């Protein structure tokens, strides 16, 4: 039989049937494969990921373009599909200091999913980058419509934030120990 990807060829050519039998777009597939790499979505099924894919905004940034500025109200988190993003702060002399450079599959700004407090650092594209964003209004909408899925995501977010808090505590303890030793030397 004359078929193309399991769809009759005549149907695939017709604007109506072609549209109905259309396979998922490359953009959607790209977003899904990016989401699968991110720890925040590690416990999600494909169906659940597709729900998130509907909420995701895909953006292109040129090298040197600002994604958000420090101090602006936070709206949501970003995941890098392709490219590199510098997380930086401006010091007293307004000179930019890069805190961290992020690459494909890494995410930033996730705390803005919880509240509107000002961004603690700026994010600037270091190369031409393709970035996807998940934003608080959409997440809150999901929590209203599909609370089980929304809670599953929030639980994972809480786990990651908790893990970071533990790491920060360990670093503080190490620093305090170093400081105590310095005092002794002094």
């Amino acid at each position, binding site marked *: 039989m004359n078929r193309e990807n399991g769809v009759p060829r005549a149907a695939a050519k017709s604007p109506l049937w072609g549209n109905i039998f259309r396979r998922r777009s490359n953009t959607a597939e790209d977003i899904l494969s990016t989401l699968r790499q991110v720890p925040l979505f590690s416990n999600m099924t494909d169906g659940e990921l597709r729900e998130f894919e509907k909420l995701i*905004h895909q953006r292109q*940034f040129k090298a040197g373009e*600002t994604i958000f500025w420090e101090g602006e109200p936070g709206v949501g988190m970003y995941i890098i599909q392709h490219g590199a993003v510098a997380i930086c702060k401006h010091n007293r002399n*307004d*000179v*930019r200091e890069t805190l961290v450079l*992020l690459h494909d599959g890494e995410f930033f700004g996730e705390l803005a999913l919880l509240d509107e407090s000002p961004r603690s650092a700026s994010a600037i594209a270091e190369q031409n980058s393709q970035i996807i964003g998940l934003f608080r209004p959409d997440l809150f909408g999901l929590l209203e419509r599909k609370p089980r899925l929304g809670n599953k995501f929030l639980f994972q977010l809480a786990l990651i934030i908790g893990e970071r808090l533990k790491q920060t505590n360990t670093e503080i303890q190490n620093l305090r120990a170093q400081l105590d030793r310095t005092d002794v030397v002094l």
Partner: protein
Amino acid sequence: MMSVKTAGKPPRESRFRPLRSSLTAEPPVLTGLPAADTKIVLVLDRKLLRRAARGVLLLAVLAALVWLLPRITPVLSMLATALLLTTVLDPLVTFLENRDIPRATAVTFVLVLSLLVGLILIRLLVPVISQEVQSLSTAMDASALDQIIARLRGELAEKIPLLRLEAVDQKITAQLQSLVAGFMQNAFDFMLGLLSAAPNAVLIAFMVFFLLKDGRPLKKALIAGVPNRYFEMALLITHKMTEQLSRYLQGQLIVAAAVAGLSVLALYLLHVPYFFFIGVLAGLANVIPYFGPIVGAVPAIIIALVHTGSLNLVLAIVIAFAAIQLIENIFISPYVTARSVELHPLAIIVVILIGGSLLGMWGMLLAVPVASIIKVTAELVLWGVKNYRLSD
């Protein structure tokens, strides 16, 4: 996950890009005026040109909008009605979706249910209201009015013997006749407006279906066109605006329905004729803050006066409307309306006058919600401009 991959300070960079030097770059030169020893050189900065082009484009778009708007008003009013209904019905769809019903099914169910409720309401209410309006208009012809005025004059002369009515009699008759005629005309126009909207109902239902089902992807597609620099601000403003306006419109609808219900009940208990028509009108008028309750009570008082001539009934109506306002202000409004969209009374007077002069009774009813939408939008845009860095 995040990891530090670079260290060290990047070279100092300036936030300000150096301006293109008009001396080093070869400038486009426009020469046209023949002069022997004077050479006029016009340097056209590319940035300036781009700005000018943008300004001209904006002006052209504005001019096109001004030209187009009056021509597409019916379509816009249908779209506005559809958006209003979408805002009201969306919480119901979300409620069903929350219970694991697919959105398309939930939308179909809610829409079919609303159409059924709408049809039942129209079937029940339109005959009653049109009968009331017709009977009211026959009762209000000139001879009947003369009789009513004569009866009122007699009653007033009896109660206040010192009042000399002969001198102002002509004036009162003329004023009352024009008032009643104006009111009736407006009421008829309003009813006709409602009835003439019926053929569009199918189109509006289609619009509501697609807005409810595909509203989110549509919004996402629209916002995708916003440049990166304004993207986060636009996203947040759109969300806040939708949220505030939905709450405001849902609140207004609940308050209007509650006031209409209470007014119909109170007027029915007081045996005021045409209680249903006046009650519904009072509910709709309640959308207008401060003045709505008065506008709602006036027709009831006029009808009570001309029909029974009893000042006691007028007093009872005033008390009933005051009580309804009290109930609305204490028990209903605080729980359902968004306070953030409150307008200054002076602004309300101005927008109602503008609305009335543009679209008559519909304009007066829509003036405050439309002004609220403009106020919320302006406030949020200002907030965005203040909180977001919109330039490099």
